[in-house]
């Protein structure tokens, strides 16, 4: 194996490890998975595609200024966002560029607790929370 290829392989392996081997994030997803099963017997796993639709919206029912997660976080979750009201810079949502995302359970719950009513006009279900995180783990 030539050296650049070896290096690239190593970098990909490290990158994958950074996304996959994060026990705190895995535990958060596992908790939402258990909750989703309790909410709906037919639940059969989280979906990147559903998470993407939730992220991109647009949704009705929430704050008119924030019809989608993408309103502040931009349509590309790998890009930095900007708070629509205050102009505050927001770190990227995609785990691939911001590995600290979804590693603090209390923080994650706090943000869903505030942002779901802002965007959807109601709390998110556990299935939606898991879909959302799954989408961003895969971006």
């Amino acid at each position: 194996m030539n050296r650049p290829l070896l290096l690239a392989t190593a970098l990909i392996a490290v990158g994958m490890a950074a996304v996959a081997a994060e026990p705190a994030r895995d535990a958060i997803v596992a908790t939402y998975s258990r909750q989703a099963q309790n909410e709906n017997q037919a639940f059969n796993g989280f979906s990147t595609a559903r998470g993407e639709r939730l992220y991109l919206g647009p949704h009705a029912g929430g704050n008119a200024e924030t019809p989608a997660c993408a309103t502040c976080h931009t349509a590309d979750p790998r890009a930095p966002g900007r708070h629509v009201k205050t102009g505050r810079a927001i770190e990227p949502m995609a785990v691939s560029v911001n590995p600290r995302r979804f590693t603090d359970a209390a923080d994650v719950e706090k943000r869903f607790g505030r942002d779901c009513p802002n965007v959807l006009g109601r709390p998110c279900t556990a299935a939606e929370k898991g879909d959302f995180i799954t989408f961003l783990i895969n971006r």
Partner: protein
Amino acid sequence: MRRWLVALIITMGGAAGAAASGLERVPAIAHPATAKECGECHMAFQPALLPAGSWLRIMDGLADHFGEDASLLADLTASIRAYLAANAGRSGDPKITRITEQSWFAKEHRFSSAVWQRPEIKTKSNCLACHPRAEQGSYDDD
């Protein structure tokens, strides 16, 4: 004795500097929970920018924080509330919760509405648009 004298001179110098032209330098936030929680949706404003009464009103009304729900767990709210009140500014109207509506703010920011409407500013509370070191408590870049 000498150490006291140095401290006194520094204190007097700081007070004179602040008095000369408003609040150009304020102590940076020295409470990690305040820096983190208050800094998520907007710059975390230093406690000296509002009097204690304003901070207490803000911290007792987080469920409707200028139109947003900014609620925190009770113990976190209490810890941030105590820090802000203990380090609050000594001037300002405690009935006013918006820093941008305190009288000193208007005196320091006499700009036309066209300036305020620049897209990079977006809102008067966006200190960082014009004061790049605002998060360290330095507002003298104008």
